[in-house]
Structures are given as structure tokens and as C-alpha cells.
């Protein structure tokens, strides 16, 4: 199935919980309301016609600091039917971004969500072990946010400034 | 040998003031020092050989820089180890940490006391020589557990525990396979064991191929026992494929992880001393020790010629099969054979028993151990136990019974009488 067909299926099922479909992107991607994300992915994962059994990638992103939202993109692939789909959510609340974890559907989401938490501070609700993964446990701030300000010191060690 | 030296001292005018006790003590010290030099030299040479052998097996050159062909590399390394800082971990058990390596070294070293190097050279010709060697060499395990425990390092402890389990398990097949040979001769004296292997006989008593009268050849059960011993002994001295106590890729360096400098050098010294003991013991018990493979001058000539012919055939085979050609083995054997025919003195020397033969046999076994090490992967600890308890032990037991039956069949013992 092509991405557009899959999106039609999703609209049929979820109606206005699907925000929009960016079909003209090089990798078409659907935007979903954060609250409906887990349902949508469960549907993609379990539906007979879709069978998305593998989560290729889970990426956090930041649309640019200030008032811009954070986001999470999910790229899915079906091993059995060999088709692709991508879903993303935009999280408006920068102070306390929250989204439901998909760790119960794909075990690979475990580390990917930890990484997104590590880099963007996005909390994945229902994640069994949400800790920093690449950075130190006591690192301050979320480095990949566009408005991240580098700390002066880390445990008394001076952090070299870029530029 | 000690007695001989002591009595020579007493006869020698300048030393007669020593008295009997003094002469004995002096002789023991003299022989001990000589043995210690031998053990140290042995380690230095074997480390070099091991490096070179592994290098050639791995299409490398090995050490080449220090001295001609890198011969002084191990000497340089030994010097480096001697002058290195002596590090003892802060939370180590200081006493055991210091004692452990010495226990290992001493137990490896005193084993040599009973090893006969030639018909006359045996430091202490004791009636229970074999028993002594086997029992003393197993004291190593105490040192290893000491070292592993004292290091206060989990990896070391794992290494020590593995080693203890392994050495204790493999003692049994080692003992039983040696016992098979003892059963044939009825003595534990190593010299007598060697004397019993003199001359030439049929292969496995009945097959009419003339072979030296070594135990490995004249009795099929001892043939098996030799391999059981070699496998079990490889495990006992912790060499690959049974090197799980030091298992470099698993336990970092096992019980020696925390050791450095001189103490670490002691481990190395004893490792190679142990390898040498195993090799020598295999040679003594199964391969006729210092006995020459040739019965007389004519035998030496024919034997060397057979060897040369085999070398020629091998060279042709390798050339044909792998398209590789090396002249050296061919040249060496042909020259030796020609010398045996041309110079009777050389042939006589070949036919005489002596140090050269035990050296050649022991060297071959050591090469075999090195070959194992650089070819095989390593067994897992449970597989190791499996091999010991479920394969080697039953095999050794059956073997022992087999030896008895064989002796009855060949008429060496008479059950009725």
C-alpha cells in the first residue's frame, strides 16, 4: 500500500484526530494529534491490512525554540507486507512535553525514547525506565533543543565553548 | 645425582671440610640453582619460540628488532618486568598477594627435581618420582586461588575459581592415564619407566612394523592414554583450548589481572615451567624419555633414511597440493641421513640415549601445545567440565582396565599363576 492509501485508512478510522498528511515531502509523513498517537500506532501495528511490525526510527525534533513546538517522528515499516509509513506528533507544551510511550508495541522504542528524552526532554508516559542514555545522568538541559544554553561547568570542569 | 655430586665433593680435597651434611646441602643448592637457571632460561626461550611460532602461523614475522631475528626480545621484556613499579592494589590482601605468585612458581619449579634428563642426569632419583611430580605440580592451584582471592578483583576471583575447578577435575584423568603406564612396568620411578622402553619391537606387539619399544607404540591402550594425558595436561597447565582461568577475552587476564612487574613475570615463568614439565613427562612416560629411537648404528642409518624419504614425499605432496615449496626440511633430513651413512660416529651418537632425545621429544610436545593454542577457540567452563568428567575420566578408566587385559593377552602377566 502507498502512504496515501494508508492515510486514507487512518482518516476513515480516526477522523479528525489525524491533523494533516504531508504527501509532497520526499518521505510522506502524517501529522497526528498527540493524544491519539498511541491508538494510531496500535492500529498500524495490529491491523490486518497494515501489519507495521517494525519501528525503524523514532526521532525527537525541535521546530525552532521560542514558542515553536517539539515533536516526535515515528517511521514504521512492515516486514511482512513491505510498506512504509511515517507519523509525527507536535508537542506544543515546551515546559512539560508528554507523549505516550510505544514501548509496549515495539521493544526498540525503549532506547529510542530514552534518547529522545535525553536530547529533547520529552517524557514518554508508560516507559519503564526513562533515564538519560547517552549523556551523563546529571547533565543539565536537553542539548538538541534549539534554545539550549550550554552550561559553563560540568562537575567543576570547564566546558569548551564552540566558535 | 645429588648423591654423586656430594660424594665427589667429599673426595675433592679442597671441599672435604664440608662433611656429609654440608656436602649434601651444597650439592642440593648447586643442583637447585642449576635447575632454577634452567627454568628461567626455559621461560625466556619458550616465550620467544611461542612468539615466533604464533607469528608464523599467523603470517606475521614476530619480534624482529631486538637482537638478530628478535632473539633478545624476551630478554629485554624480562628486564623491563624486573624494573617495573611494584603495584599492589590498595584493598588487596597484601600478604597473600605477595605469597601467591611464589607458591605457584615454587610448585612449578620443584617438579623438575624428579625429572630425568639423561641416563645419569636426574636431580633426585626417587622411587616415587611420578607420584611426586603429579602431586607437587597440583600445588599450583593453591597459589592461583591465593592470587585470585588476594587481588580483590571480581575478574581475578572468577579466574581463580575456574582454575581451581579445572585443575582439580583434570588431576584425575591425568593420574589415571599415567597409572596405565605404571601398571605396565610396576614402578613409579621415572628412570625405571624409561629403562622399560628400551629397544625395538612390533607395533602394538603383533603388527609387524618395527618401531621403538616406547609405551605409546607397544600397547594400543597406552596409545590412547598418551592422548588422554596430553589433553588433560593441557587443561592442567591452563593452555588454550582450556585457558579459561586467564581467558583473555572474557576475564581480562583472570587471576593475574591485578599483577604487574616482577610478580607477573613469576606467573609467566611458572606457566612455561609447567608447560615444560608436561612436555617432559609425556616424553618420559609415553615416548621413551631419553631413549634413542634407533637400536644401533644400522638402525640409525635406516631410520634417518626413512625420515629423508618421508620428507621428500611430503615436499612433493605439498608442492602438488598447495603449490608451496620449501627446501629446508628436505635438505636437513637428507643431509642428516647422508651424515649417518658417511660418519659412523654420528650414527653411533644418534643411537645412544641422551639429553638430545628427551629435548627433541619434549620440544615436539611443546610445539604441539603452541599449535593448539594458536589454532583452537576456547571451551566454555561447563564444556570443560563435561570433557573432563564425562569423556576423559571414563576413557581413562576403561583404558586402565584395557591395559590389564592387554597384558594378560600378551602374556606379560599371568592371572592363573
Amino acid at each position: 500500500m502507498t502512504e496515501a492509501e494508508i492515510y486514507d485508512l487512518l482518516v476513515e478510522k480516526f477522523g479528525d484526530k489525524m491533523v494533516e498528511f504531508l504527501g509532497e515531502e520526499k518521505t510522506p509523513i502524517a501529522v497526528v494529534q498527540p493524544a491519539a498517537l498511541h491508538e494510531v500506532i496500535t492500529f498500524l501495528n495490529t491491523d490486518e491490512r497494515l501489519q507495521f511490525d517494525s519501528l525503524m526510527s523514532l526521532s525527537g525534533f525541535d521546530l525552532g525554540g521560542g514558542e515553536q513546538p517539539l515533536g516526535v517522528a515515528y517511521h514504521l515499516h512492515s516486514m511482512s507486507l513491505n510498506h512504509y509509513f511515517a507519523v509525527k506528533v507536535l508537542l506544543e507544551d515546551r515546559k512539560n512535553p508528554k507523549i505516550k510511550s510505544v514501548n509496549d508495541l515495539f521493544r526498540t522504542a525503549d532506547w529510542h525514547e530514552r534518547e529522545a528524552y535525553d536530547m529533547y526532554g520529552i517524557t514518554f508516559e508508560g516507559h519503564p525506565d526513562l533515564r538519560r542514555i547517552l549523556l551523563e545522568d546529571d547533565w543539565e538541559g536537553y542539548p538538541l533543543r534549539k534554545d539550549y544554553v550550554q552550561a559553563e561547568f560540568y562537575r567543576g570542569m570547564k566546558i569548551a565553548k564552540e566558535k | 645425582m645429588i648423591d654423586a655430586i656430594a660424594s665427589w665433593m667429599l673426595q675433592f680435597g679442597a671441599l672435604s671440610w664440608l662433611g656429609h651434611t654440608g656436602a649434601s646441602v651444597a650439592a642440593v643448592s648447586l643442583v637447585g640453582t642449576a635447575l632454577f637457571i634452567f627454568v628461567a632460561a626455559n621461560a625466556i626461550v619458550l616465550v620467544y619460540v611461542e612468539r615466533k611460532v604464533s607469528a608464523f602461523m599467523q603470517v606475521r614475522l614476530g619480534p624482529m628488532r631486538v637482537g638478530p631475528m628478535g632473539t633478545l626480545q624476551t630478554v629485554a621484556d624480562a628486564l623491563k618486568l624486573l624494573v617495573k613499579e611494584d603495584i599492589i592494589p590498595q584493598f588487596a590482601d597484601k600478604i597473600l598477594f605477595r605469597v601467591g605468585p611464589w607458591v605457584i612458581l615454587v610448585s612449578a619449579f620443584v617438579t623438575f627435581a624428579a625429572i630425568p634428563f639423561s641416563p645419569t642426569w636426574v636431580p633426585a632419583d626417587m622411587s616415587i618420582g611420578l607420584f611426586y611430580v603429579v602431586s607437587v605440580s597440583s600445588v599450583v592451584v593453591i597459589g592461583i586461588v591465593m592470587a585470585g582471592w588476594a587481588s580483590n578483583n571480581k575478574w581475578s576471583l572468577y579466574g581463580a575459581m575456574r582454575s581451581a575447578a579445572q585443575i582439580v577435575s583434570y588431576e584425575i584423568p591425568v593420574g589415571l592415564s599415567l597409572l596405565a603406564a605404571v601398571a605396565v612396568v610396576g614402578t613409579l620411578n621415572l628412570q625405571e619407566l624409561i629403562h622399560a622402553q628400551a629397544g625395538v619391537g612390533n607395533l602394538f606387539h603383533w603388527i609387524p612394523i618395527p618401531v621403538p619399544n616406547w609405551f605409546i607404540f607397544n600397547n594400543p591402550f597406552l596409545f590412547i592414554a598418551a592422548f588422554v594425558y596430553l589433553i588433560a595436561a593441557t587443561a592442567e597447565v591452563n593452555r588454550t583450548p582450556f585457558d579459561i582461568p586467564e581467558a583473555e577475552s572474557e576475564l581480562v587476564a583472570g587471576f593475574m589481572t591485578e599483577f604487574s612487574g616482577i610478580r607477573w613475570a613469576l606467573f609467566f615463568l611458572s606457566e612455561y615451567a609447567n608447560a615444560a614439565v608436561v612436555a617432559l613427562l609425556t616424553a618420559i612416560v609415553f615416548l621413551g624419555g631419553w631413549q634413542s629411537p634407533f637400536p644401533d648404528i644400522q638402525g640409525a642409518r635406516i631410520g634417518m633414511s626413512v625420515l629423508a624419504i618421508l620428507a621428500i614425499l611430503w615436499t612433493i605432496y605439498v608442492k602438488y597440493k598447495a603449490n608451496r615449496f620449501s627446501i629446508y626440511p628436505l635438505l636437513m633430513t637428507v643431509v642428516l641421513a647422508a651424515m649417518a651413512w658417511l660418519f659412523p660416529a654420528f650414527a653411533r651418537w644418534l643411537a645412544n640415549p641422551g639429553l638430545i632425545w628427551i629435548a627433541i621429544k619434549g620440544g615436539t610436545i611443546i610445539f604441539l601445545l603452541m599449535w593448539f593454542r594458536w589454532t583452537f577457540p576456547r571451551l566454555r567452563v561447563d564444556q570443560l567440565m563435561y570433557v573432563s568428567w564425562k569423556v576423559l575420566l571414563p576413557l581413562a578408566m576403561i583404558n586402565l582396565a584395557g591395559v590389564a587385559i592387554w597384558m594378560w593377552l600378551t602374556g606379560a602377566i599371568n592371572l592363573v599363576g
Partner: protein
Amino acid sequence: MTRLNAEEMVLNMGPQHPSTHGVLRLKLKTDGEIVSHIEPVIGYLHRCFEKHGENIEYQMVTPFTDRCDYLASMNNAHAYAMAVEKLMGIELPERVEYLRIIFAELQRIASHLVAVGTFGLDVGAITPFIYCFRERETILDLFEMASGARLLYNYIWIGGLAHDIPPGFVEKAYEFLDYFDDRVREYNRILTGNKIFIERAADVGVMPPEVAISYGVTGPNLRGSGVDHDLRRVQPYSIYDRFDFKTIVGQGEMGTVGDCWDRYYVRVLEMEESAKIVRQALDQLPAEGDVKAAVPKKIRPPKGEVYFRSENPRGELGYYIISDGTNVPFRVKMRSPAFCNLSVINEIGAGWMISDVIAILGSLDIVLGEIDR
């Protein structure tokens, strides 16, 4: 009867340990030799690839991708270049496509050689490792001829190559392929068929296909579990649809499908397949063509996003790039295969012995540079 008070011991494997293939730390909960829980601790080699990527121009990211999976630099740069090209809609000259395939597949052989050799090393066989490195050196010589470097090439550029191959390269490459043809037989003789090796690797660390898919395990590890999934076949990118090669899938010859031995053997056979692809690519290589013809003067992709994935020696390497229309990427996410492959270690490694955990880790073939990025 009183019971001994036995507790589990936490054993810290790494970050300095001979068999963790870099600076990985595994917290093992052990009961004697048996490991009951494995917790990987990663991040010791974190070099802020994604943060760097957001601050430098597109072409300048290529050297960083090289450094991520330092054993498969060509494949990484290839995937990144293809992702940006897809974003910009660049059509490549034929010659560039063929040369990229040649380099990518040679790199795959080189990477698998390291994987096979180090797996041997992990189970205690030292010699095969050196043999593998001997062959790898020859491949690195070829790379050195083309790019001037032996490890980090920066050779594949967005829209082309850094420069054309030097004269004599094709002949050398053919020479290598002829030489490599019966190497696999040699590895099989010294390692694959060795009884001890089979004992150590077969039936150990079995990874069922469902587990592999759920954990996002890809590449030879997934195929070792019997799943016929190779992106070069499933979703042919570049010009992989033009070549004739098999997807190697674990058969479980020595034990269960998906054990360490299968994962190892898939790599051994894949080297043969890659050699086949290189040979075909060399045969079909167009003689003429400017490798820089399609290199854009200014790399300024239109606003938009792309997720591009390709088959790296370790599995599925994905780049998620968001462009805001400037010459600096807005977001570069690298979905590294080894990251997902490592996450499965507790699932398949718990319950085995310490030695097995090392064998399993070796069979997963991780590169820490890629995990930590």
C-alpha cells in the same frame, strides 16, 4: 537445614575490557558463572554528532558520518549522501553510482572481515582474526589508492565523489577479488567448522525472529534469525536492482536458527555475495564520466524532510533529515543499526554464562562509535 545466604553479584564489564569492542559497559548480574541480567551502559563515545550536524553545512557533515561507524565509513557516507540527494532531487551520473557500489561493497567485505575475525577472537581463536585483517589490509590499500585514507575517507560527496579513481584501480580490484575467492574456504576450515567453535557458538544466544523484529534488529543479525530482509533487495536503492546476488539467511545448520553461529555464518557468506556484486559492478563500470558532474555548487536543499535508509554492514542505517531551506541541516537524526542491535542483548543474553555473553556480544557485531554517535 539452613540455606547459604547467596546473593547475585554485580560484575562490571567495561568500559575497559578486551571484548566489549570499544568503550561499552555492561552491568552483569551474575550468579556464579550464570548471568541473570545484562544492562548495557552506553554513551562513553558520545561525540554529539546530531548537535554538530545542526551547526555545520551539509557537506561538512560527511566526515562526521565517517567517524560514526569507523569500520564502515564508506557505507555511512554513502547513505548520508543519498539522503541529501533525495532531499535535493539530484540525479547521479552512472559512473558515480557504480563506483559508490564498488566502494560500499568492498567496505562491507572489510567490515564483515573485522566482525568475523573479532568474533573468533571473542571465543578464543586468535589466528583467524589475523587472517581476516590480512585481507582487510588489501581492501584498505584499494581505498587508500582512491581516497588517500585508510579508515576515514570523506570520499563520497553529496552529488558525486571527491575525485575519480586513479588508473590501475580496476585491475587491482579484480586482483583482490580473484585472491579473495577462496579465502572464505580458508575461514571455514580454520574457524567455521571447528568443533570447539561450533560448541561455543551453536545454540547459544538464540534470537527468535519476532524478538529481532520487535527490537529493531537489522542486518546480518536479523537475517541470521531467518528473516529474509535485505534493504538492497526489499527496497533497492542506488542501482542495487541491477546486480545478481543472494540474500543470505540463517539456516541453523549447526543448531537453532538465530544462534551465534548463524549470525557469524551469514556474515561469512555475505562477503562472498558482496564480492560478486563488486565483480559485476567492475564489469559494468562505464569507462567515461565526470564524477563531479552532479556535485551542486551550493548545497541548499528545499524546505522539507526525508527519511532515507540503506543497508549498512551492521544493518539498517537511516538518516532523518529536516531542512529549513538553508545550507545548514535543521535536524540530522541518525538511526544507527548497532544501537538497536545492542538493545537486544539482555533479551537474548540473560541466562547464559559470562563466556556466552561475550560470544553473543561478539556475534552482534557492534561498533561503539555508531551506538554513541
